[in-house]
């Protein structure tokens, strides 16, 4: 059994060695088409990270009226924190608001000094939301409820930004899946074609092996191996190219490379499309015993 398997693998290596040139060209072709997918993945991964951060920041800022005492304000915050969809609330006193203002906008800090001691920023309550509530409808509903409460002067949330945000994330995800599918299909077809050619070129060997008593899998393993290798090596090659491109662009476009899990995904996609391709290629290439 061991001998049989090692013979099958040797046979496969022989196949590849005989036409190393065309194998390398196929590999390059697969790598380049895979690279388009890798770059797409990187863009979507980076945009996804940005959007996720943005989504994380989707919250509601509630400005309170000046004549509300601190105790009343904290009470109000307590009530809000008990409402559905609210993850946390944070009361910002006028003093804290001013400190934040001075820290964030040091150039405008003089403005406050100019306005004199009787002016102060309004107190506010920052509401952060449960992830499920970061959609435009739910935020809108909550905001309406809160704005009707006593002591609430004004309410601010990302009215304009939100609907687009949610949609963008959805579209991006389906685009990645679509691109992955298109790539898997085209890679399978490339591999199917090279395997079909390989089978045709090796028709005599396939026939003789089967006539002298080789099991079906022995005949198939070299071609399956070739497809798998093409897929995995093509995917790995595309990642190398993409790393190079990513490195060259790193100074002009700020971005992160793909995380390990996504790299695995690319390799698995390569392997499975390669295997599927060689299966299709063999189906159409190896003659049926009855023909």
């Amino acid at each position: 059994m061991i001998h049989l398997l090692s013979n099958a693998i040797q046979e496969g290596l022989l196949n590849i060695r005989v036409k190393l040139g065309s194998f390398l060209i196929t590999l390059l072709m697969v790598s380049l088409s895979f690279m388009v997918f890798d770059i797409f993945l990187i863009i979507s991964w980076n945009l996804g990270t940005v959007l996720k951060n943005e989504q994380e920041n989707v919250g509601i800022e509630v400005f309170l009226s000046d004549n509300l005492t601190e105790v009343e304000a904290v009470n109000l915050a307590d009530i809000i924190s008990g409402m559905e969809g609210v993850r946390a609330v944070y009361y910002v006193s006028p003093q804290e608001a001013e400190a934040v203002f001075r820290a964030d906008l040091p150039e405008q800090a003089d403005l406050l000094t100019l306005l004199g001691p009787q002016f102060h920023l309004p107190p506010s309550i920052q509401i952060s939301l449960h992830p499920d509530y970061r959609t435009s409808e739910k935020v809108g509903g909550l905001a309406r409820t809160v704005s009707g409460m006593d002591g609430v002067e004004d309410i601010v949330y990302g009215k304009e930004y939100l609907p687009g945000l949610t949609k963008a994330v959805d579209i991006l995800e389906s685009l990645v899946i679509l691109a992955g599918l298109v790539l898997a299909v085209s890679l399978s077809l490339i591999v199917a074609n090279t395997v079909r050619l390989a089978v045709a070129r090796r028709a005599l060997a396939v026939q003789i092996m089967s006539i002298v008593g080789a099991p079906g899998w022995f005949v198939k393993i070299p071609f399956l191996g070739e497809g798998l290798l093409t897929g995995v090596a093509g995917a790995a090659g595309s990642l190398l190219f993409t790393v190079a491109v990513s490195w060259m662009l790193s100074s002009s476009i700020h971005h992160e490379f793909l995380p390990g899990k996504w790299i695995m995904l690319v390799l698995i996609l390569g392997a499975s499309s390669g295997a599927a391709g060689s299966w299709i290629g063999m189906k159409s290439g190896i003659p049926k015993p009855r023909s």
Partner: protein
Amino acid sequence: MLVTFGNVSRYYNDWPALENINLQVHQGEFLVVSGPSGAGKTTLFRHIWMGDLPSTGAVEVAGYRSDRIRKSDLPFLRRKLGIVFQDFRLLPERTVFDNVALPLQVAGTSPKAIRRRVFSLLAEMELNHRRGSYPHELSGGEQQRVAIARAMVSHPVILLADEPTGNLDPEVSQIVIDLLIEINRSGTAIILATHDPRQVPAGVARFLYLDRGHLVNPNLWDGYRQL
């Protein structure tokens, strides 16, 4: 019984390549099948190694029946057969040694046992000096002897030779036929397809004639006129 054809017919789009064939081949027998081109000789052979199956009737070879055999049994049937073709069908990128070793390699024999068997067989067939050569470096007669060595390497019970001398000149053909007679003497059954049954001495073999897919009585056969 090594081979039994029970009322076998094989049609290709209604064209009868074989029709109502009844045939038995015994252990150690030498059978010569002749007939003009297109008579169905190759089709008959293909039914023996079950590269093709009957349209009606059944073939039984070394205990495997065509109407019951599973795809996974085919390798085991074929390891009991040795097959030789008119055009040799050696693998061009393999040396003589590796061509002869192929049936053992695909059966999972250990490299050591393969070396032992192939070396002794090549020595026996006086091909040892050619073991590192590639098929294109050999004469036609040598190529066919290598093909016969490949067919014999796993000790088959039957050797099928489909017009093995069709591409060889008369002297070399006689060497190949003599080799087959010698192999048969050591106990292997042989089925030989040939245009010219006169190559084989009358006392050595049983003769059958195929004509347009039918086995015909040798005494009534008028095919000699076409030879």
